């Protein structure tokens, strides 16, 4: 994996061209080149890179001149905060709406919800972000255009969600990022509800005289939650990836903005470090999914014991 990333990154353009002034003298270019170790053959670069990577050093950023991993670690909390808020928004709005739509397939509300969800998956995130800025910041002037705002601390957690100013900065990007996921959760929840409600055990539970509230809470919900939670854990990774777009629009000082700038400027160590970071994150998420799955589903849990 690291080899693939490394070779592919190496094929693209010469970062030195980006770093130095086009009018610089050739010997100055050479000096920069050797400073970053770019004058050595590719395989030596790779070995050096691997050695570094194993000791937690993914090289220094060409632009910032600081360790890439440190930069990533510094920016990650902002992205994490954004993605977490978006996920929470998606679940809080998506789940009830989806279940409602699944339980009342013919009602007027369902039509509106499902129409909205089609719109939600169709609307390009970045464009919606721009429109939100135009409406809430430019025309109405309610919310700030960009940045992260003040950061508060609560129970040892630091987040901009704990100050009013931070919240006003957070709400627009988080909603923007969440919109697609809300639509997705609605669709998942509705499909799950329709499917589970048609199963025999629901019919049997009704035949036992259980009231609708109990059916939904104890029989429907656990059964649809397992697949939804598993999907959402994986989708959390997508949120972090999509944050690149949202962060670019709202100038949110997170990972996404860092990496987009790095891609445009061919800041190789940052891109490599970001990819390694993301790969690790996804592996971790997959592991978490397996754990959640095993914890929630007795069929998996108990088989594992044997």
């Amino acid at each position, binding site marked *: 994996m690291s080899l693939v990333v490394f070779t592919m990154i190496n094929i693209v353009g010469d970062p030195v061209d980006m770093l130095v002034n086009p009018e610089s003298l050739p010997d100055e270019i050479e000096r920069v080149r050797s400073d970053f170790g770019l004058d050595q053959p590719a395989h030596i670069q790779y070995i050096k890179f691997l050695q570094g990577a194993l000791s937690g050093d993914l090289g220094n950023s060409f632009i910032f001149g600081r360790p890439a991993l440190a930069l990533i670690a510094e920016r990650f909390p902002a992205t994490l905060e954004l993605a977490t808020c978006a996920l929470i928004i998606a679940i809080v709005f998506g789940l009830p709406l989806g279940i409602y739509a699944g339980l009342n397939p013919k009602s007027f509300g369902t039509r509106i919800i499902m129409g909205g969800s089609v719109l939600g998956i169709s609307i390009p995130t970045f464009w919606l972000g721009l429109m939100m800025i135009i409406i809430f910041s430019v025309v109405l002037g309610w919310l700030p255009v960009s940045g992260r705002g003040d950061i508060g601390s609560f129970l040892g957690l630091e987040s901009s969600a704990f100050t009013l100013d931070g919240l006003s900065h957070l709400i627009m990007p988080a909603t923007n990022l969440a919109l697609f996921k809300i639509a997705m959760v609605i669709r998942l929840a509705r499909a799950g509800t329709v499917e589970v409600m048609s*199963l*025999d*055990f629901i*019919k*049997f*539970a*009704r*035949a*036992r*005289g*259980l*009231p609708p509230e*109990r059916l939904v809470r*104890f*029989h429907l919900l*656990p*059964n649809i939650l*397992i697949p939804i939670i598993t999907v959402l854990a994986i989708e959390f990774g997508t949120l972090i990836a999509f944050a690149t777009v949202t962060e670019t629009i709202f100038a949110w000082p997170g990972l996404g903005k860092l990496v987009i700038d790095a891609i445009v400027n061919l800041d190789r160590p940052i891109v490599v470090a970001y990819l390694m970071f993301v790969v690790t994150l996804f592996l971790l998420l997959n592991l978490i999914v397996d754990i959640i799955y095993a914890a*929630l*589903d*007795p*069929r998996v849990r*108990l088989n594992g014991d044997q």
Partner: protein
Amino acid sequence: MTDLLNIRKLSVSFKMEYETTDAVRNVSITLRPGEVLGIVGESGAGKSTIGNAIVNLLEPPGEITRGEVLFKGQDLRNLDDKQMRDVRGKKIGMIFQDPQTSLNPLMTIGGQLIETINKTINLYGSEATNKVIELLESVGIDEPEARLNLYPHQFSGGMRQRVVIALALAGDPDLIIADEPTTALDVSIQAQILDLIKKLCQERQVGVIIITHDIGVIANISDRVTVMFNGQAVESGEVKQILTNPKHEYTKSLIAAVPRGDRKVERFKSIDYIEGGAQTQRRIDLDQHWLGKKFTQHYSDTAISINDLNKKYSLKKAFLKRNRSYVHAVKDVSLSIKTGESFGLVGESGSGKSTIAKLVAGLVSTDKGSIKLFDQEVTNKSKGKDVIAARRNLQMIFQDPYSSLNARMRVQDIVSEPISYYKTASTNMEMRQIVRDLLDHVGLGSNAMLKYPHEFSGGQRQRISIARALASRPKILICDEPTSALDVSVQAHILNLLKDLQDDLGLTILFISHDLPVIRQMCDRVAVMRHGSICEIATTDSLFEKPQHEYSKHLLELMPKTDFI
């Protein structure tokens, strides 16, 4: 004594956008306390719809259009949702067909029982738990305290159905509606569950409605029976009277179609009522016809010879050998089938009988042993021309008529595929004529040619399957549970057809079934299988009259009694 349930002129319709289907028409039923009423009928008869209509659990768009459902004198149709919920579970309990799907997989069985008891008889805490334990004991579950916290998947099918029965009885109902309660279970468990239902209901003076397609079930358990056909109740009365002296034509043909376990009959008779009208079966003159040509060639006396056959399936894959686990599906099986013979393989699910069919047909590879078709070794190691030629002598009829035909091909393309692939017909014209003849021969009629499989019923699809098999001009036909997915009357038709084909073409048949009476009607010799091995091979008559092996005796004891006919 007053009636427990009195249904008067009930009609149920399913209103669709484009069409309305009357699933139940003008059906009247009465039931006294402690009585067991059977409702019998084939698929589409509307029998399950009645059960669902009583407790108002019809799937939309189904609704009751007319009639009364009087339960202890009160019309259930007048109740609102909330009142209806108080009836369900508390007054009327339900048991559904498939115990695999009737229970919430994510809730312990104790949890499901307790929530039902909370709701129906308002017992909470330790009182509820005690009641649950008592219930589980009464349905024959040992050590109920230890099992309260188990999930449904930790129980076997039969045990789960016992839990379902416990749930149905949890609210001390006066009426139990059991919809095909034993259909999804193995024969040996079917009898136990039926006995249990009967016993519990007598003890508690609970009225029971048993909805089933199986006349054997009715004969075993019910006091009275209503026969349903096409949404109508065609006949009702005491079980004994209906079974021995049916009045209505439909009842007569339904009973005649039930395969007997006690003696062999040549053909099933008077079963024309169901499929409607006379069959368009037009026989081929085999001496002249393409189909007959190959059958005049001489073949050796032994059609299939199996020696020391073994097959394992891996259950758990693992890198280390000792961590892998296998199921030994076929264990040291040897048998030989004479040319022109009809040989039966019988056993419960998981006995390995279908695996043998697949091994012989070359659909799965053998681990060890040999299979010879007309003295030609055909196991996987040899893949020469001779093997392919020998395999072409063998065709298969499958269990599920809905999945054994390619839904995207027209019937004529399905049937003609082996002819065109092997170019056994000289022209396209000739090929089409052959297909037409084959379809006529299996009683389907040649106007089926341009249609797609979904336009046909299950029985008709099996006929298409048979025509497709014949198009290869096989000498050997493997029938793997060919009628177990079909209604009993349709089954009788297909079995008759298979018998005729065997007589006409001298086919060798390997007939696989779990159904002993069917085996008795179809086979000359039988092998009884259990856990991948053969227990006993005998002629059909001697097996049914004097079984030697303990397991054969056991199976025969469980066989539904058909001496009522």
